[in-house]
């Protein structure tokens, strides 16, 4: 298995004890973030997110189908993620591995629980026909923090998406033809952010070699201090004090990242 060597790990932690990182960032600094939307002509909405050397692309596709039994009057949301073998020597082709399943589920819950997509407006005929919004996430280059990059990509792709035309008479989605209507979204954008624990340090936006030695992480989707979803990943336990510190970091970073996303999307 490819992983960060013990020697590098020791140096990374030594640096962090002094509040420093190999690439010159502070512990709670995000890398440079660029967001491009409309990267696919075929998708309803799409985005490319670069976070330092990490790159993901996200596409939104829509189709009309039956609602889920427990939400007859609401559209459906489906999030999937594929860790493409081209994006890292450690990803292999084949059935989805745990990491990509977890990433998709964490992003799904951030969007779903915050009610960011107004799914009730995506109902065509109650109990029969609703829009399904598919958010598909692909990794292009993995240099750590795919989770947060994917979350930002999903938001950007959704914001750029237009609903396809639908032929009511023949009950057919007219793929490749779009209405002027955007996907109905709420004003409050849920920002999904992950804090990692490395040694005794809490950091955000790890590079690959940092993430390799992360002992545990917490991902939180929140807007303006209201928390909508949370997932603790990896086995190391956290004291309640550490947990509170993580909430501090999220609270502080969420607003800044939100501003940077807004700026990039303009």
């Amino acid at each position, binding site marked *: 298995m490819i992983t960060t060597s013990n020697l590098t790990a020791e140096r990374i932690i030594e640096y962090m004890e002094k509040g420093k990182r190999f690439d010159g960032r502070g512990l709670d600094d995000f890398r440079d973030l660029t967001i491009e939307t409309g990267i696919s002509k075929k998708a309803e909405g799409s985005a490319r997110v670069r976070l330092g050397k990490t790159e993901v692309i996200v596409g939104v596709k829509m189709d009309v189908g039956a609602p889920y*039994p427990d939400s007859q009057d609401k559209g459906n949301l489906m999030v999937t993620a594929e860790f493409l073998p081209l994006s890292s020597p450690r990803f292999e082709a084949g059935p989805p591995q*745990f990491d990509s*399943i*977890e990433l*998709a*589920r964490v992003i799904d*819950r951030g969007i779903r*629980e*915050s009610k960011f997509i107004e799914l009730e407006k995506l109902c065509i005929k109650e109990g029969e026909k609703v829009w399904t919004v598919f958010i598909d996430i692909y990794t292009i280059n993995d240099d750590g923090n795919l989770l947060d990059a994917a979350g930002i990509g999903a938001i950007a792709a959704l914001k750029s998406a237009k609903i396809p035309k639908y032929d009511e008479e023949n009950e057919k989605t007219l793929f490749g033809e779009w209405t002027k209507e955007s996907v109905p979204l709420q004003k409050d954008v849920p920002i999904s952010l992950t804090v990692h624990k490395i040694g005794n340090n809490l950091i955000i936006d790890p590079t690959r070699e940092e993430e390799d030695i992360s002992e545990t992480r*917490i991902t*939180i989707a929140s807007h303006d*201090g*209201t*928390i*909508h*979803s*949370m*997932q*603790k*990943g*990896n*086995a*190391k*336990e*956290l*004291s*309640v004090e550490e*947990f*509170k510190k993580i*909430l501090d970091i999220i*609270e502080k970073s969420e607003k800044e990242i939100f501003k940077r996303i807004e700026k990039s999307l303009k």
Partner: protein
Amino acid sequence: MTKDFKRPDGRKVNELRKITAKVGVVPNADGSAMFAFGDTIAIAAVYGPKKMHPQHAQDPEKGTLRCNYNMLSFSVTERIRPGPSRRSTEISKITEWALKPVVMIDDFAGQVVDVHINILQANASTRCAGINAAAMALAHAGIPMKSLVTSVSIGKLDKQLVTDLIKEEEDWEEGEGPTDIPITLTGDGKISHIQLDGKIGRKQLEEAVELAKEAGKQIHEAQEKALKAMGEKNE
């Protein structure tokens, strides 16, 4: 408001459902246990430490903990398709992470401890019941552990925090709706697992962790009592 708040099953806001805990429910296993919150019933069986297969999955430096969470097809109202799903894959891993901080299997290089969890009947909080059963089964199997773990779902219904959610509460429709926060704590009060779905502010989230601690005491008591009863039977 706490006093007036009515839960569908009449419990107090910080009241757990009736806990049933039993050790030794699967004779073939090296350790096994049942844990129930009311009518949410989980059983867990431990096999190992044993040689890890396939060989490429072996860790030459330390032992591996491997958990598998599975719901029976008829454990819920609408039949679920048997076999693994994305949800069960995630919960299996979450369970593993929740238990790992207390399980001391570093000395079992190349070996695996398998924990199989099955949900026989579900009325919410299934992952928590599963984790509680698994901790007992591991102890019953004699796997070295720092402590047990205790797992409980804390909920927020509209604005009210409650302990140990049932399905009816998970689907709460009034006010701010439901928030579900499953939390697992180690014996020394550290968080080995936390998840959240819903809508909550920071202050109440911190209160939720405190409620989990409070509930953890009762869960721990039930776990220990069942383990002791088993020990006495064997004497």
